[in-house]
């Protein structure tokens, strides 16, 4: 489809942003400047336009196959960064977001997962359920990326090995605060999306694979957030579990969506 071009352009923008971020971190050059943010915003605009075009073409929220779902998944991650980054003055997270978004988009574009689908009307409840769940994943993803930044900085402080990253990354106090707050928000949004799923009327058998997977993800994060709220977990372990949770989502998301009956639609032609 011609709309791939917009996602391709967005992905190029994310690649350039990721390249600059890694170069700046390694060389100690300032990460945040007007053009790097502009680059990410332009890439996000292309990404958004792709989703809009695809949504117009299929008449649904563009989450009807794995390709669209991955594109929406990565879009929600960038959206979260663009909200959280300025709010917490954590532009550094852009350097961590861009590579992940690039990889997700690259997989979506390269793998044969854009099956044309003939989807019946989903209904606003189902669209909201899926959208909230994916947005929740985006927010949890940003929490994990803040966790990665925390673990890198913490490791440098522990090992007394101060590289150029030490100067570019924020202090661990700020990283842990942002990571934990974003984690709570991500869990809340994902929980809302998951809860909405119970109220959606559906015909036919339930999608037990996806329900079981969602339940596992929710339980993992619920345990993490509960222990965190009780003050029983060190900042380091919180970061490790947050990263591990998101890696689990990333590694299983495509498989679950491939197996999921609710998202297997008959191919046209």
């Amino acid at each position, binding site marked *: 489809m011609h709309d791939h071009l917009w996602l391709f352009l967005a992905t190029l923008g994310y690649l350039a942003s990721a390249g600059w971020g890694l170069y700046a971190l390694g060389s100690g050059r300032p990460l945040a400047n007007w053009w790097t943010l502009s680059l990410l915003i332009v890439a996000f605009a292309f990404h958004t336009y792709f989703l809009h075009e695809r949504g117009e073409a299929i008449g649904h929220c563009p989450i009807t196959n794995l390709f669209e779902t991955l594109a929406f998944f990565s879009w929600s991650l960038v959206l979260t960064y663009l909200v959280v980054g300025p709010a917490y003055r954590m532009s550094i997270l852009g350097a961590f977001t861009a590579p992940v978004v690039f990889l997700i988009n690259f997989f979506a574009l390269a793998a044969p997962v854009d099956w044309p689908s003939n989807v019946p009307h989903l209904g606003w409840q189902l669209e909201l359920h899926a959208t909230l769940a994916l947005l929740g994943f985006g927010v949890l993803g940003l929490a994990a990326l803040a966790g990665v930044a925390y673990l890198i900085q913490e490791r440098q402080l522990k090992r007394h090995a101060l590289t150029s990253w030490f*100067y570019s990354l924020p202090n661990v106090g700020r990283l842990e605060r942002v990571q934990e707050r974003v984690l709570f928000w991500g869990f809340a949004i994902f929980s809302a999306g998951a809860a909405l799923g119970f109220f959606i009327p559906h015909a036919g058998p339930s999608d037990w694979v996806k329900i079981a997977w969602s339940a596992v993800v929710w339980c993992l994060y619920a345990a993490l957030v509960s222990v965190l709220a009780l003050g029983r977990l060190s900042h380091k*372990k919180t970061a490790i579990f947050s990263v591990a949770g998101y890696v689990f989502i990333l590694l299983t998301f495509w498989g679950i969506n491939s197996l999921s009956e609710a998202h297997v639609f008959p191919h046209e032609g």
Partner: protein
Amino acid sequence: MRVMGAHVICGGLTFDEVPVELREKVAFRDAQLPQALREVRRMLGLTEAVLVSTCNRVEYFGTTRNPDEAARAWPEFLRQFHSINDNFSALSFQLRGVACVEHLYAVASGLKSMVVGETEVLGQLKDAYDIAQTQQQTGKWLNRLFQSSFAAAKSVRSRTGITRGHVSVGSVSVELAEKIFGDLRKCRVMVIGAGDTGERTARALMRHGVPSLLVANRTHERACELAAELGGEAVTWEAWEEHAIESDIMISSTSAPHYVLTREKLEALLPRRGRRPLFLIDLAVPRDFEPSINLLDDVFLYDIDDLQTIAQKHLRERQTEVTRGLEILQPHVARYMAWAARQDDPPEAADFPRGVITA
């Protein structure tokens, strides 16, 4: 290059040639500078003048048609102004034209400082220039030269790692504390023992906003003295562990022959602290904190060797950036020299009669 640039000169005494016991004899106090400026301008035959006096250098910048005469008059000026007998001829340097411009830009950028990359010198140059300007001792040559040197320095600082990393135990500790906690204004510090390095480190932390400080020492009177000096509060030796629970940063420099804080002891204290990180600075030899403490989550332990190693590494890194800094300065130097070449009126010879200082 036109002869114009050659009229801008600088000279004086710097730390790399002149030991402190001589530099201190010729340093100018702020209050002396206005008169010294007038005299240096008159005796050296300068049409414009700026006099820079810091703990590491005493230098003049000026414009003249007769640099040789200025070089000869400089030691005499120092002798007369400070009423001393030392002869600084052999120890003084003079640079002319492009070499002078390069020198000022490098000094302003911290490339020629004793501690490479230190930023204090830029403020000192700005102060010296302000005084000279207020005293109407500068004109278009030095105005342009100094103002462009500030811009050149900014460029070097922002494009190199010349100012990155601190180079003393105290400032490295502050840098680490800021990377752990961010805002030090909410941190509580406890000083255990009353060693000099510990005191200096505590002072450095307080200068960066630490609001409260506790001091514990085996001799309580000494703890009280140090607490009074630092503006903190003394606690008894027996009670320091209780107070440690509330502390975010602990600096230890006792002469105890054994660990003052063991891992076992700290593990028992940590649950009572909540999830706040703890920064431990062990300045004692033998060490006061058991090294395996560093394996505990949210605890960051540095001993004196760790801090000194970081300081030395920073210094080496700064020195490797000097070449890059000098390269960055080249376009700035070229711009100034190009501007100088476009000027029609060379700096006039001073109209002042030369002679002895009439203080």
